[in-house]
């Protein structure tokens, strides 16, 4: 299947993907200071893996981000978000309270100035990255089912 793929596409995607990944990280980490945030950043990070998926096939993409890991990232991001919310409940008695801001107020317009918002952005970025990758991977598997060695177990009525 790899035979008819253009060498240019394979090489360019190989070089582009790390930069897209890095840009996604930047968007996630500076979401509270500039336009961006967890969701756009997460989508950009997922896009770097999806580029590999489209250009070099499923196996290459799964080498970078295994399906199981992506699926767990999805749940881990959501749990991280809820944990931050619950920590606010524990530390200052209010759900979703920005407890870090209370105890460690950063300098204005510096990176660490928004308390839990950075952590929330990271959590959302992890979740969105995992979810978008899983969705697109799933669609690529469903399109050509029965081919390839991926163990894709569906829910079925016994």
């Amino acid at each position, binding site marked *: 299947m790899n035979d008819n793929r253009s060498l240019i596409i394979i090489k360019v995607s190989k070089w582009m993907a790390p930069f897209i990944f890095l840009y996604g990280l930047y968007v996630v980490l500076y979401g509270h200071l500039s336009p961006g945030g967890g969701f756009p950043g997460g989508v950009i990070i997922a896009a770097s893996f999806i580029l590999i998926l489209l250009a070099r096939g499923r196996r290459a993409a799964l080498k970078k981000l295994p399906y199981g890991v992506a*699926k*767990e990232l*999805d*749940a*881990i991001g*959501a*749990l991280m978000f*809820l944990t931050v*919310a*619950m920590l*606010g*409940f524990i530390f*200052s*008695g*209010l*759900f*979703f*309270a*920005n407890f870090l801001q209370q105890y460690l107020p950063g300098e204005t317009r510096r990176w660490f100035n928004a308390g839990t918002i950075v952590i929330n952005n990271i959590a959302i970025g992890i979740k969105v990255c995992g979810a978008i990758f899983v969705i697109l991977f799933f669609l690529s598997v469903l399109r050509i089912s029965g081919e390839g060695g991926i163990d894709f*177990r*569906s*829910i*079925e*009525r*016994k």
Partner: protein
Amino acid sequence: MIKNLLPLMIVLPMGAGFIIALLPEKFAYWANRLAIAVTALLLFGSGLFSTTGGYYEIGGWPMPVGINLSLDGFNRVLLLMVGIIGFTVAIYALNYMQLYTGSNRFFALLMLMLAGLNGTLLSGDLFNRFVYVEIAVISSYILVGFGCQAPELKAAFKYAVLGTVASTFTLLGIAVIYSLYGTVNIAHLSVQLAAEPTGILFNSPLLFAGLFMVLGFAYKAALVPFHVWQPDVFETAPAAVVGLISGGLVGVVGIYAMIRTIFTVFGITTWLGWMLLSLAVFSILYGSFKVLEQESLRRVYAYQTISQLGFSVLGFGVGSLIISQDGPYWVAVLIVAGAIFHLFNHAIFKTLLILLEGTVEHSEGYTDAVNLSDKTNCDRNFSIASFVAMASAAGIPPFAGFFSKMIILGSCVLAGYYLFAVVGVVGFIVSSVVYYRRRRRFFPGVEKIGGSMRFAVGFLTTVCLASTLLVIPSVWQLFPEQAAEDILTDQIYLEQIEEWRQKLLNMQLPSSVPDNSEVTPDD
């Protein structure tokens, strides 16, 4: 303060859902136990909140800016309802979902759906409620297509496409309201819309917003022009899911959201009352008569659900007509309380009926009524449970279903709306006749209900019997009547506004009263 624990009603199921999604397949045993423990906690929590009220500001952000959770009489009855249904269905699914693979994923989605339902009930602003509605509804789309067979997928596709269009129109309504008033907070909106000089009917953007939102929620409630998804979904989805949809989703995401939008946000007006009544009358008549020609038991239940929810909406509609035309206030309270009581009852008995049908399916592998009626040696507990559920559904006197219907019909007569009383009586008689005509099919009998399903059915039968106790005057005052008064007077929401005004006065700001000229976002 106990109300500080209010967010846990949403966080617990949501967190459990993601933890279950994280666990690999081989920990299915622990995932199931976790799900049941969480639903038990939710049931306990909804019992705990059943006598409190108030609102909770998330993150400490004050009211019109921040997101808040509100708990009043109406919410807490339905919160209890969702708690009971969720607990029962989770226990029931432990055995029932052996029919399917991937029970982990079922429980993860079940938890997310419960989080969505609780969030819909609690959230105090329109947009968050929309998001919670979507969480619950998307989980239900997936759960409907859980079996991945052709009929399930077809039903899920139909349900999901039409549901997405309905949700999008709801969002459009919210956007129009935000563009007019610059807020989506229900309490803030209720004050601003009440001060609207021209009235809602002659204010065309507001009229459109109201229509979009009410009709969007009417789709989720499967009231008659929007009922097309329900029979297919009921026929094909797993019984545990159908129980959850019929008991929780339709009542909460449909009726509760619609009634909260109309009564609290738009205020009680005549034309919205007539709209509710037209939905109700068509639902009662169409649902009742359509039942007569159904062969499949699940389809019977689907059309029954349409007509029973029509009864509930009839109560709300007549109540809003009485209020808006300055009728006797106590009759309005009585009929709205009856409607809330009926919503609660319907959730209990319909879920019980569907779960019983599921036990037959589980043990026999089919629900073809003709073959089942020949069986002679049935489990006695099964017969008792199905008699209780059927009697409550058909409205036989000592059971709760009779009282709720009678309260609605009696108040219609008291308020002088004889036509609606006649419609209600027709629906009542037809639905009772259905249960009489097909009594053999409702006692199909199974030799033995297995394991956890037995407990779930027993628990729900007890609740179904115990809900009759709600008509005892002191209990009636505490739950349905309190709920009706809260929804008619918007007590908690007025308190929020009052407290906010006090805060603003203390801060010595120039504009201390929320008025219409305050917010113009798109100048």
